[in-house]
Every structure is written in C-alpha cells, then in structure tokens.
C-alpha cells in the first residue's frame, strides 16, 4: 500500500528511473559511459574495443547472475549457451545468407530451448548437482561444435558476416550498450516482481519455498530458460562483432570469466557484476599489455581475486556499496537528529 502511494507521489523523472530500475547514480554512470567513447583519450579504437568487450561481459554477467545469484544454481555451462546462440546465428547467415540482425534474434530460440531442457533435466537435482549437470551439457555442446566440422568449421573457426560494414568499433559500442540495457531492465524488473521473490525463496531454501506454496519446478525452469535466452541473444552479437567463431567460445574457461566478474561484483544484485565488468576488463587488458612478456599473468590475478573475494568478502562490490550507503544514510540521520534537537528548546 505504502509502495503504491510512494509510486503515485513520484514525479516524471523518478518514474522513468523506476521503470529503468536505476538509481540516480546509476543513470549518471550510464550517461558518462555513453559519452565516454567520444571524449579523448577514450576515443581511440582499442579503448573502445575494450569497452565493447567490457559491456559484452557486463551483459553476460547480468544474465548469469539471474540464475546464479537468485535461484543459487551456478549455470556452469553458461558459455555453451552463449555459443549456441552465436553458432546458430553465424551458421544461418553463412549457409542461408540470413541477415545477422535477424539471426541474432533467431539465436535466442535454440539457447532458450536447451536452457529449458536443462531446467527440466536438473529439476530433481540439488543445486550443486544441477550446476555439474549444466556443465556436462556445456561440455557436450563444446564437443559438438568442435566435431561437427561441416557446420561449424571446427577449431579452424567459422567466418561469418559482421553486423555492419565498418571497421569502427563505435557503432558496436552503442549496439551492445542498448543490448546490455535491455537485458538489465528486463531481468531486473522480473527480479523485482513477485517472481523474483519466488526465485530468492527457492535459492535460499527449496523445501521451505515448496511448503509455502511456491512451485520450485516451474520457477527453476522459467529462470533457466530466460537466462539462457539472453545468453543466446548476446552470443549472436559476439559472432557478428568478431566475425569469426571458434568452439572455444563455449569453453568452461569462458564461463569462469563471467563467474569471476559476477562474484567480485556481488551476487544477487544484477548490477554488481555489470558495474565492475568494464573496469575489470580494462584492468585485465592493462595488465596484459604492460606485462606482455608474461602471458597469463592477468589470469593469475583472476584466480587470486576470486579466492580472496570468496574468503574475505563474499558479498562483493554490491555488498560494499550497500555498506557505504548505509553509512551515508546513518550519518545523515544523525545530523538530522542532532539538528532537530538544536532547533527545539
């Protein structure tokens, strides 16, 4: 009730923010991000490329966190679903000459379908077994992509048309920015709804959720299907951005990359992983270019980061932000309280 009244009281700007599930700070960051590639020194091609990679990572992190953070099942075959969308779209455009713009959306269907089946298959399994099962499914598809050479060209790589006939990264930046925003807003709105509550309940205690009338089966399947659908869609972008697709896009290590970003960013927030994706990609690329004589150094940091975060701060950046805002609010409250006392006799 109170919420409804609050909603009614909001002005237009606040309403728009609410629809987009953003805080003013979030909006500010987004606007800054949108103009960033136009401002020197960030307008260099390789930096924009990093940003595209970062945004792609951010969008994946949102889709990944949707299952991992809420129903508490790490979709360990996540990269395979991205790859499934990518290969579908790429094969359609190469073999049938379909426009990549349409292919990208068609790529949603196989990923969602396999996601749906994975959800059905893992129904009876506890969280961790479901994760392992999803991993096996991912491994199976990775193997298929390697071996079905007549379709995928195997490890040689499948050349496919890009979305645009340009060598500039800037248009891609805005495309992936829009795709990221769509993923974020759609999934965040779901998470905020009653369905999101059901997801959280299932993730925390499946039995308790069941006894309180939530049908875990249904919600788990819905969750898996949706998350995989977005993964497939993003895969389409990946294929037509790079223009070449190799089976390793489905490799477990790609899943781990997304997982690291989500865990450092903070699970069950959706925005946590997204927020740190770009800085994270930048940091990793910097390490890679500074220590170019030592390949793999950035991945050592990856591993170390993950270990340290998991042991000492499992809530990640999102928890830290919550802590900061709490602090801020508390200090403001104190000031208000003190002020009031000073005013009153």
């Amino acid at each position: 009730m109170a919420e409804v009244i609050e909603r009614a009281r909001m002005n237009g700007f606040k309403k728009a923010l609410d629809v987009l599930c953003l805080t003013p700070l979030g909006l500010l960051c987004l606007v800054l991000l949108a103009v960033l590639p136009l401002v020197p020194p960030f307008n260099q091609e390789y930096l924009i490329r990093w940003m595209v990679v970062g945004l792609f990572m951010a969008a994946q992190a949102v889709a990944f966190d949707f299952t991992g953070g809420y129903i508490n099942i790490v979709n360990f075959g996540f990269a395979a679903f991205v790859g499934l969308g990518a290969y579908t779209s790429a094969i359609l455009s190469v073999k049938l000459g379909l426009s990549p713009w349409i292919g990208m959306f068609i790529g949603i269907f196989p990923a969602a379908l396999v996601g749906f089946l994975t959800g059905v298959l893992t129904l009876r399994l506890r969280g961790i077994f479901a994760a392992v099962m999803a991993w096996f499914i991912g491994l199976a598809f990775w193997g298929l992509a390697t071996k079905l050479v007549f379709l995928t060209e195997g490890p040689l790589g499948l050349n496919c048309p890009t979305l645009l006939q340009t060598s500039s990264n800037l248009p891609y930046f805005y495309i992936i920015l829009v795709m990221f925003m769509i993923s974020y807003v759609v999934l965040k709105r779901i998470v905020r709804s009653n369905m999101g509550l059901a997801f959280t309940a299932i993730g925390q205690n499946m039995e308790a959720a069941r006894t309180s009338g939530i049908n875990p089966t249904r919600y788990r399947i819905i969750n898996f299907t949706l998350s995989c659908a977005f993964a497939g869609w993003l895969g389409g972008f990946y294929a037509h951005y790079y223009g070449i697709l190799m089976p390793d896009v489905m490799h477990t290590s790609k899943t781990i990359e997304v997982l690291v970003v989500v865990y450092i960013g903070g699970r069950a927030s959706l925005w946590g992983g997204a927020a740190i994706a770009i800085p994270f990609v930048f940091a990793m690329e910097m390490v890679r270019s500074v220590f170019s004589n030592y390949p793999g150094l950035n991945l050592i940091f990856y591993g170390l980061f993950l270990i340290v975060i998991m042991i000492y701060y499992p809530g990640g950046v999102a928890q830290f932000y919550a802590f900061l805002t709490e602090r801020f609010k508390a200090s403001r409250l104190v000031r208000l309280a003190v002020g009031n006392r000073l005013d009153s006799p």
Partner: protein
Amino acid sequence: MTMEKSQSLQLDQVIKGLKSPAGITIALSIVAAVAASIDNGFYVIVNTIVTGGMWALVAMGLALVFGVMNIVSFVHGEFFMIGSLTAYFTFTPFSDYLMDNPHPVAEALLPILAMLASVIAGIVVGILCELIVFRPLRKRTREQWVMNSFVITLGLSTFIINSSQFVFGTDFRGIVSYWDYPTLSIFGVYISFDRFLVFILAMLVLGLFWLFMKSSKFGRAIRAVSQDETGARMVGININGIQTLTMALSSALAALAGACLLFMYPAYPTVGLGPLYNSWFIVILAGMGNVVGAAVGAFVVALLQVLTTIYIGEGWDYTIPAACIILVLIIRPSGIFGSGVRGILDQ
C-alpha cells in the same frame, strides 16, 4: 539343509545385485566390452582396463574430497598436472645422465623415484590448498559452503594453471617411455611395458588405499568424518587434521596418476582438464562421494571412451560419455551406485 539354504540365499543376493542399476550397468559394460573385443580384437579390454585403472586413481580422490570435506572440486585436475610436471623434472635430468652412464638398476628404479617425487609434491600442494584456502573459507562460510567452496576451487584452478604457464611456459614436456623394455604380448595384444607396469602400480595403490581406509585408524577416521562429522568430533577425532589428511591423500592420488601417465599425456598447463572431466563423469555416474563406486565407475567410463574412439571417432570422447551420463542421470539422479548414505567406501 542349511548349506542349501545359504547357497540359495547367496544366489538370491546375486540376482538382486544384478537387477540393481549398478549390476545392470556393470553387466552391460562387460557384455559391451566382450562384444567389442570379438569385433575389434582383445585390445579393447586391455585398453579399458589400463586407462580405467588410472582414472580410478583420480576419481577416487575426487570422491573422497566430496565425501569428507563436502567440496565439489574443480581443482583436482591441477594436482594431476603438478604430478606430471614433477615427474618430468625428476625423471628427465637423471634419465639424460643415465643415457651417458648406463646402469640397469638405476634405470629400473628411476621411474619409481619420479612417481614418489610427484606423490610428495601432490601431498605438499594439497596441504597448502587446505591450509591457505579451504580452512579460512570454512571459518567464514557456513550456509553456502558447497557453492562457495566450488567457486573457490575454480579460482584455485585458474591460479594454478596460469602460474604453471607463467613459470614453465606452454611447452609440452613429455617422455617417450619410463622403462625402455620390450613390449609385452598378452593374449595376442601388444602392450608397452610402461602401460603394463603402470597398471600394476595403480592396482597396487588402489589396494593399499582400500586397506588403509578399511582397517587403519586414520582411514577409519576419514570414513567416520564423512559419515557423521559431529559423531567424529564426539569420539575425539580432530576434524581439521582429518580434512588436511584427506586433501593430501586425494591430491597425492591425482599427482600419482599424472606421473604414471606422463608417457601418454605430456605435462603442460591445462593437461589436468581432461582427467578432471573424466573423473567428474565417473563420480557423477557412480554417485557423489562413493569411493568404491568411483573405482568401478572408472572402468565403465574408460570403456565408454574406448568404444567411442573405435566406433565414432577421435575427439568425441567427451561428448558421447557426457551424453550417456546425462541419460543415466535422468533415470537415476543419485548415480548408479547411489549416494543415499553420505559415506564413502560403504554402500
């Protein structure tokens, strides 16, 4: 009269055993192995048994870590890698030296030395992982232990693989053979001396391991912790110590397998991934945390891979087993040996 009765009882039990999922799987595997060897030659069975023995070593460690510490480990393959690296760096310098100064006894014993060195390396790394990573995590994580420990093993795996690449590069470091002896012929199948001896060694270690778990004080304590942690604490078992011991044992087993297979799988940073996938197939197929089941399941998965390579082709040996195991799990999510009792070595 009583003799007869007990005999019929045994027969009943055998029939009952055969009707269980485990019995069906084992019977089917044996039939498939025999059929394939009639079709393709006896080497099918020999290959299955030799590789199965190795996967058994790796998978048992994985099952052990899950059973005792409740860790779904992704880092297990890296112990395999560390084992093969250690074996390589112990074996090659001495082997080069012996090339110039031949000495038959030293040549025969050197591989054993290399394997011992990898076992020690495995123990050290296992203990370090437990002390530096898992113990602090255990102190801080209560509720989401399984997921969190799983994620942390991902981090460990990434860290170890890339550190190895950082230090040793991406070269393939392999050897041609451990023992430069002529190949053996068993039932008309030629098998290299290495494979033969390594198999014998694996079986020996499996037997020792089983004895240790069954009848030694600490082996029993490990099983006790896996069956009831509170109970174990009540009878005076130091849980931390047992967990360290478990980690050391499991990583030592994996490292030994890595050392044993050096002549087939040269050491390079990601060499552990294949064994990791395989042992996961095995553990899931057999039922999580079931160590005896893992030993048997290893041969089933090995057979599956041998058959896949023969009848479908190279490179399918992850896809087909994965698909088969997914099918099995649809019918029986707890694995063929079941994991109703969260114990190990006990069914």
